[in-house]
């Protein structure tokens, strides 16, 4: 009997908490809208790269603050590797990268506000500024080479 009463009391309290949290901290509408729109970012037949190394995770572990140099991210796919340095403060980021094997082509930087394109030079390098802080994925395509290398989505 007592157990049933306890269960009822718990359910009632949880119900009240549900109502209060629902009012105080609902999922923001703009985030629902962004989640709905994310289906359009689907890619097919890309070489999906993995994040192999993140210098800021390492700095955090060793207790060293991120220094003058930006955050360095390394990605590896089946056939290509990408290294990207992320720098910048506030809401804008500068990305400088190197794709290997090198080749001229194009990099699509996909982010919350849309996407930017930047040229990949013959040595596989690129640089672009003014990328909004937030979640990004890079898609690198070398002219005349197979599938694009696509990085996982990652907040920067």
């Amino acid at each position, binding site marked *: 009997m007592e157990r049933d009463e*306890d269960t009822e009391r*718990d359910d009632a*309290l*949880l119900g*009240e*908490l*549900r*109502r*209060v*949290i*629902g*009012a*105080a*901290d*609902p*999922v*923001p509408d703009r*985030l*629902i809208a*962004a*989640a*709905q729109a*994310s*289906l359009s*970012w*689907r*890619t097919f037949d890309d070489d*999906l790269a993995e994040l192999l190394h*993140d210098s*800021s*995770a390492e700095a*955090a*572990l060793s207790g060293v*603050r*991120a220094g003058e140099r930006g*955050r360095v991210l390394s990605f590896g796919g089946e056939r290509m590797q990408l290294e990207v340095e992320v720098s*910048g*403060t*506030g809401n804008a980021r500068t990305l400088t990268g190197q794709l290997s094997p090198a080749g001229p082509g194009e990099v699509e930087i996909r982010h*919350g506000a849309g996407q930017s394109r930047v040229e990949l030079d013959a040595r596989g390098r690129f640089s672009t500024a003014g990328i909004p*802080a*937030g*979640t990004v*994925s890079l898609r690198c395509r070398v002219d005349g080479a197979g599938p694009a290398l*696509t990085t*996982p*989505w*990652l*907040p*920067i």
Partner: protein
Amino acid sequence: MDLEALMRAAREGDGDAWNAIVARYSGLLWGIVRGYRLGDADAADVFQTTWLRLVEHLDGIRNADGLGAWLATTARHECLRVLRVGQRHVLTDAFELPDEAEAAALDARLLTGERDRALWRAFEVLSDRCRRLLRLLVADPAPSYEEVGAALDMPIGSIGPTRGRCLERLREHASAAGLTTGEA
């Protein structure tokens, strides 16, 4: 449509099916990121990253029953990564700490009743473990224990007992806060 059918349709590019999946799990994911006390920018990043990861892996997830747990696990990993890296704060101002207390106060202003505010404050001072669990259990729609277990990396068998203990703590804090409020 059941989840299996929604996943199949979403793979074919069906926006309505995708939106139904988003509607079903957004509350769970928001509950996870808020449980980890991420500020607005970081919470938004993790929430969005998790959905984009699913878009990336739509073809790889064949077991629709495991979708909620997959999303929950992905969100938890991303929360832990953001907390480890502390990127927004490192990049904007190394010495600026997120003012969570202020954020909580702002949110609480939206609550009209004294009783609601007291309950919110009582919730805010719970231990991390309790706050995370209860924040998830009140998600709408309510997550399964399997999803909660994946979100918190907690054995499913311990969810029920922990829920009971955490609600007891909440009840204690609430009545203490209520008394204080009455005397003020």
